[in-house]
């Protein structure tokens, strides 16, 4: 039996790596992928706690997170594609219309 704390530590590591990727990367698509990594780290923590509490609710929350992530990916990628069509770039620094 694997100690459940291992899973929690792993989820923390993955979350931090996702955050690092979000800060270091500069193209929108990879930044978006980094967000997905963080979501997955959260999923892992939820499932771990569900197992620890012998309750199924944590798994249901993960189910919802996964479905919402699918919707989010569709809209997010559509927006990125639109940005690319209009500005011919997906680098985050080049999207600075809101800069005063």
């Amino acid at each position, binding site marked *: 039996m694997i100690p459940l704390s291992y899973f929690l530590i*792993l989820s923390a590591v993955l979350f931090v790596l996702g955050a690092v990727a979000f800060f270091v990367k500069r193209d929108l698509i990879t930044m978006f992928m980094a967000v997905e*990594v963080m979501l*997955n780290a959260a*999923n*892992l923590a939820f*499932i771990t706690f569900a197992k620890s509490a*012998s309750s199924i609710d944590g798994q249901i929350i993960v189910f919802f997170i996964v479905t919402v992530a699918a919707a989010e990916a569709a809209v997010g*990628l559509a927006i*990125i594609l639109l940005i690319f069509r209009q500005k011919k770039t997906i680098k985050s620094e080049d999207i600075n219309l809101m800069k005063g």
Partner: protein
Amino acid sequence: MAHFLFFLLAIVCIASVLGMIISKNQAYNALFLVLAFACMGGFFALLDAPFIAVVQIIIYAGAIMILFIFVIMMINLREGLPPERKKWTLYFALGIAVVLFVELILTMKSAFSSLKSGGIEKIGSPTDIGRLLFTEYLYPFEITSILIIAALVGAIVLVKKRDKE
């Protein structure tokens, strides 16, 4: 056996996320991520959640990442983006990462002691999940379906090329 599987999957998972950070090619990034998500499915299976594990693989690895790869191929940027951001962002990110990690571990530390290995009974059977989804979580479930329809319509409207008047 379970330990071996766990460490194998953990190493592959972390390595592929690291690979995503290091690699500059978006298509490779997406593939690394597919690997990471597949490993995540393995973790869920280890944690007695076979249904969620398969859902994770079907939806994340099978659908969402295919979408990403489609967009990457459509955009098809030349390889070799200009060098990374100014050096200080990297150090800044690393600093934030360390702080975040310490914070997370400190938060979880209180949870470690109360973690139980759970009962012997299997919890994640599809029947149980289905029953709960259609009773206790009926409203969230229905709202999710509306959300997905909205996202679908929204994505199509956003990306569709408008006819020239």
